[in-house]
């Protein structure tokens, strides 16, 4: 009787170890090669620019094109202080809402912002709805205006963003309307800001 019991315990132990081993093996293989689990560092530890208890507001500078010259003109706004991703979305929302000082709108008003995520290396992936392309007036100058109004507004206001990569409906696109290359990220272009 006792002998049988120890045998039983041994068997249980054996199966337990087997399951444990297969579980570990499963984990090991599923994690696979390093590049396979390259998950975008979404909602990365937001540098606390405000205490989360009170809905603090912060001032940002937006850049709008003008009817008189080819430069981008600064306009002050207040947005809710939040994580960099949410602030980025709000900055773009404000750009789409248009200027309060009579400047032009840098992107088609029908455009929606789908998502923003910021990687560890400071690249903001900004995903727009298809209207950004379909309703875009087209032309090199117009493309440059749209791109740099967004890029300059994001980079100058959000510390963790160093460059901006455009996505349309979740995927990469070659250009907005046949001119400027969107397959590479953009850095800020201070030279087109009016002084």
């Amino acid at each position, binding site marked *: 009787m006792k002998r049988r019991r120890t045998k*039983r315990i041994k*068997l249980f132990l054996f*199966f337990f170890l*087997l*399951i444990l081993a*297969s*579980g570990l*093996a*499963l984990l090991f*293989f*599923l994690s*696979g*090669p390093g*590049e*396979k689990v390259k998950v975008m560092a979404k909602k990365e530890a937001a540098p606390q620019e405000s205490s989360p208890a009170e809905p603090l507001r912060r001032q940002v500078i937006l850049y709008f*094109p*003008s*009817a*008189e010259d*080819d430069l981008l003109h600064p306009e002050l706004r207040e947005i809710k202080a939040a994580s960099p991703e949410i602030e980025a979305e709000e900055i773009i929302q404000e750009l789409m809402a248009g200027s309060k000082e009579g400047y*032009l*709108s*840098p992107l088609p008003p029908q455009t929606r912002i789908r998502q923003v995520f910021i990687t560890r290396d400071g690249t903001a992936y900004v995903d727009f709805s298809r209207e950004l392309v379909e309703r875009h*007036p*087209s*032309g*090199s*100058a*117009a493309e*440059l*205006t749209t791109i740099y109004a967004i890029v300059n507004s994001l980079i100058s206001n959000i510390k963790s963003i160093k460059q901006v990569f455009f996505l349309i409906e979740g995927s*990469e696109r*070659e*250009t907005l*309307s*046949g*001119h*400027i*290359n*969107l*397959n*590479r*990220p*953009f*850095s800020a272009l201070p030279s087109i800001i009016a002084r």
Partner: protein
Amino acid sequence: MARRQKAAHIYALKKLIFLLFSIFILWSFFPYVFSQTNNLVQAKVEDRTDSTRVIITSGLPLEVFLNKFGSSLEVRLKSPESLRFRSEPVRSRLVRALGWASTKQGYLIAIDCATADFYYKNSIQPRPFRLEIELRLIPQQEEHSQPQPQIQVKPEEKMSSSVGHEVNAPIPIKNIGKVENRDDLSLPPAARRIRTIVIDPGHGGLETGARGPNGTLEKDITLAISLKLKEMIERRLALRVVLTRDKDVDVSLENRAALANNNRADLFISIHANGAFRPKAHGSETYFLSLKASDEEARRLAYLENNSPEFEKKIEEENQNQIMMILWDMAQAAFLKQSSELAEIIQTELNKLLGTANRGVKQAPFKVLTGVACPAVLVEVAFISNPEEEAKLKDENFQASVAEAIYQGLLNYLRKIT
């Protein structure tokens, strides 16, 4: 006793469940383990009596795109899995080396050949994946001969005209009739090394480009000016002119650059009409490429720039594959200096002849310029979004003066490069 029997039953049941569970686990991850060895892409090169074969095999079904760039054949592979590459040592008359790189869009095998004068045929077997590429030398003929019909890859392409999507096909060279008062006879011999000029009329087909307030389309204006410029150059200079499109068709931006490279373009001029948010924007400007390279790329590009235009000869054999990889993506990087000179000279002529406002020479990351492996500029003739300039752009005389201005710029550039 009955109790003991029951316990034994439960015990047997438990044992069974454990067994089933472990079998399930083993069964579910075994294929995964095996697939790890499946992602290997193998390549070998075999010489036959009159051809060379490159055979690429893989355990995964792959999507393949082939493109010939000068003396290289580029094989792009698309696969959701990450791939590894192994090649047998290359010993062949025609193929010098095989290169492997992972790009943002997938993977790339570059087949580096000893000469650009070859053509290829390929056959694909999906499962198990096997791609066979047969490379053959083009029989040697006189240098300025008519194009080789064998180059065409697919039979249906033999029928199509000089432009469009068949990037691998050469563009027929027009026989230039009588030589009368050709400007190039007065050119220094060095400038005569420029043989082929590719003119790229912006947009086309469904891709209309910018639209003027009165409905004028950018694609129509760019084509009209390009045709005039082609005619002008062919009449006055003994140069071969290739258009990336000569009618209202879609041509992808990559194909435009590839077409220029495959035709061994010596200069590339893209013609566009501008569009802006503000209706008052007006004037002419000339662009060359601005590149924002990553640190690693910047380092390699600096090397290329310092060694251009004869950089290929100076790079040791072992580095060549690596450097070729950048060339596909950013061939233009090695020609930025010459491109900026060409842009300056063309802009000067536009200012002289058009009476439009001078918006100067600028740099921007234009997609169409990135892959072009020769000096390349993009001319924004005037603003189609401005009603006054839209009317000008539609005017045949204005179009002719634009062509004349670009032609004069070209001529001055040719004179300058001695």
